[in-house]
């Protein structure tokens, strides 16, 4: 039985901030195929967020994430002026006022997390891979999203981690423990690459070498997607793969650009962008009335 993309559920809110004096209180809910995030923004600043596993019911997953983000804050849904839903399940957030694509939300969120200098964002989620170009305001100028093929997604990496009985967190570091960089696996398809890797293990390749070979193939695959959309600095990587040094390092080498770092949890980029979209929409709404 395949296991899903593994990560820890978490929540946080700013205990030093009293949201009651905030003018614009908005939220974004990002319902992905694997994880859901709810993010609350008060007057342009991150106030709270929660990240939870997505269940079989999208509206329920959205609500669970939202409830957990609100926990301990004294805030209720009624105190939130505008909610934007996004992600795979964006049309299924019943308490949202509008739905915005994950592409636009991701760009906006990255602009907040990495600063207005970010121009290219690579997001490798559990079941998709996106390249987004944006301007200094976080508005999308180009994008490509691949959710058809597992290669280049967290799930693809997980198949390999399972094959080698290595935890997903160890994959990156272990892949760097090679003296010489091996050639990349020849198959892009995860299913066929897995067969190829099984053969390599039989030939006596150590786990680190097999992982190096796979991470190398993955970084090359992603680099071609990046080249298609074009890489303009500054460059940032979000999503689970940002934590895989094996892919990040090889990718940086291949495209000749280093990725920016952030202190924010990269998983909230979509929800944060959605909350910021919500803020703009609330401001417009109030301005109009």
């Amino acid at each position, binding site marked *: 039985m395949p296991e899903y993309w593994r990560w820890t559920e978490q929540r946080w809110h700013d205990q030093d901030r009293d949201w009651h004096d905030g003018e614009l209180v908005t939220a974004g809910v990002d319902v992905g195929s694997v994880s859901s995030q709810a993010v609350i923004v008060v007057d342009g600043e991150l106030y709270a967020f929660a990240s939870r596993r997505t269940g079989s019911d999208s509206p329920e997953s959205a609500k669970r994430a939202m409830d957990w983000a609100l926990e301990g804050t004294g805030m209720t849904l009624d105190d939130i002026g505008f909610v934007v839903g996004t992600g795979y399940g964006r049309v299924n957030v019943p308490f949202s006022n509008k739905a915005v*694509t994950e592409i636009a939300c991701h760009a906006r969120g990255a602009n907040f997390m990495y600063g207005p200098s970010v121009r290219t964002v690579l997001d490798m989620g559990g079941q998709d891979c996106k390249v987004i170009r944006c301007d200094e305001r976080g*508005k*999308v100028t180009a*994008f*490509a999203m*691949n959710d*058809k093929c597992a*290669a280049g997604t967290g799930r693809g990496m997980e198949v390999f981690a399972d094959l080698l009985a290595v935890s997903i967190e160890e994959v990156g570091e272990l892949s760097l423990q090679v003296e010489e960089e091996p050639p990349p696996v020849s*198959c892009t398809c995860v299913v066929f690459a897995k067969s190829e890797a099984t053969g390599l293990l039989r030939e006596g390749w150590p786990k680190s070498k097999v992982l190096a070979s796979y991470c190398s193939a993955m970084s090359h695959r992603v680099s071609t997607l990046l080249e298609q959309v074009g890489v303009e600095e500054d460059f940032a990587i979000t999503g689970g793969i940002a934590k895989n040094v094996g892919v990040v390092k090889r990718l940086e080498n291949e495209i000749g650009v280093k990725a920016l770092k952030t202190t924010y949890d990269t998983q909230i980029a979509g929800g944060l962008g959605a909350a910021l979209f919500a803020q703009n929409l609330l401001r417009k709404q109030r301005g109009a009335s």
Partner: protein
Amino acid sequence: MKAHYGYKDGAGDFFVTIDTDRCLVCEDRRCVPACPSGVFEIIVDDYDDEVAAVVEDHRKTLKYSCAPCKPDRDRPPLPCIAACAPGAISHSW
């Protein structure tokens, strides 16, 4: 904005790209009826612009959706590209 719809898999890159800045000025929207597979639709995007997009159901099957217009030999001009007056549509294969 350059919207690349489609995917990359073991067999190759299958993207239909719509340059929405060019698309915006179009009034006729002839791409929609021109495609025999019904690949295109008009949407209001996240920035409130009315532009063409690839229908969600086709985004993961573009290799097959576009196959009727792409024989291996003697390929005629693609109907969608021919129909697009502003020249907003391009194919990666």
